[in-house]
């Protein structure tokens, strides 16, 4: 679900080409997100997991999948190793 949330934001709000995400080697830098885009993207997750993810400036140096794994690890660390339900109220 984490991956879908971020991809949906990047495709629907930032107009990124959906086919970009077919590349397993996709780099975050290739998405050409500025600092505001990055914090806005992270907020899509933070709003669901209830805490602020640390230091967004490190993500542009990562691969896309590496970033997803890093975010998931941060969420698990905050939840005793569990990945909580990331649906917002009203979402099925």
């Amino acid at each position: 679900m984490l991956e879908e949330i971020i991809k949906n934001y990047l495709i629907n709000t930032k107009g990124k080409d959906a086919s970009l995400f077919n590349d397993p080697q996709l780099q975050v830098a290739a998405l050409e997100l500025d600092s505001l885009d990055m914090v806005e993207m992270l907020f899509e997750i933070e709003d669901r997991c209830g805490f602020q993810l640390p230091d967004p400036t490190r993500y542009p140096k990562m691969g896309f999948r590496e970033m997803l794994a890093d975010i998931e690890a941060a969420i698990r660390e905050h939840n005793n190793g569990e990945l909580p339900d990331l649906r917002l109220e009203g979402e099925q």
Partner: protein
Amino acid sequence: MTKVLITGMGAISPLGADLPGSFAQALAGHCAIGPAPADIAKWLPDILLAPAASEPHTLLDSKHASLDRASQFAMVAAGEAMTTANITPQPADARRFGVFVGIGFGGAHTVDGLYSRFQSAVQSEGKRNPVLMHPLSVPRMMANAAAAAISMRYGLNGPSNTYSVACASSAIAIGEAFRAIRDGYLDAAIVVGCEAMLTPGSLLAWNALRVMAKPHADDLARSCRPFSQDRSGFVLGEGGAAIVLESAARASARQQPALGELCGYGCSSDAAHLTAPSSAEQVYAMQQALDDAGLQPADIQYLNAHGTATETGDVVETESIRTVFGSREHSQLAISSTKSMHGHLIGASGILEFVLAVMAMNSGSLPPTATLEVPDPRCDLDFIPQTARHGCQVDAIMSNSFAFGGSNASLVARRYPQ
């Protein structure tokens, strides 16, 4: 000095989603005032509003969905004005093209949403973190958000200035853009007024000031009654309006016809009271605007009054207009308060009323003070009661904006070519 021409106009208002629609409804005497939605009415059952005729985000590209509602109104109005003026993004003289915006309260929807989210999270029994806010909250609520969005949308590198002068905000923005072009600092400007604060928080504050109209017994829509004996205050509206100003040389070089010449601007401060107006300084603003234009009072055929329908405001403005233009017996001036129909758009009111006045000049049809049934004897001028007047020869118009805080602005425009 350079002549300053109006080459484009636009509006999204309670009367219509564009300027021609808004003007047509104004001529029809349509009052776009109604009850508040449930989330406001549950606290303020008698409060009345004039919401925009169309949701602004539906008229914009999806990338503008994250802007505050006020900025969205600005973008819609600017888009219509730039299209009318045949101006596309990235003009060759971008550094000589400025953005001037008037807004009273920036980002009211964002601020209300922020506190609403905070309160909801506090009451969620730990399910949500009250500290987490959208990272674009500040860029959305800053007063110059609309100016920034417009300058980026059109690639305009001249100054992008925002004027916050309460009800005179966008009239001042027009006047300052006029001076910048006339005095040679710029060759063109897009001027916008916008306001969007029909939110629970804003309306609680306005209600506390006790200046809001009470529901009219016969017809809620006719509750804003400027210059009437039974007036009870104004109705808050929302929307935006815009004009493109260009030097005559720039417009001529690209063979762009003008909708009129902006030729006079006067401004003053009462320096007396936060909300009670002063006739002397209103008179001074109007006289400055006439002098600036090189016109006599008799040269103006139509005046769009500030006309808020407050007890003091209407009487003082009548006195001021009478001082400048003479009594009804000695003047041919026709006056109306279109706030009777579109409500008070605060920061956007000056420019909306100015573009309606320019439309009146060019069409010869004068919008009425639609709800003026029994005039206050102290408001004894020709306020075009109830129905529009057609077939009028209008060579020049004036528009007044008098703000809380004591700031006054008057604008004069005339036909071009004369």
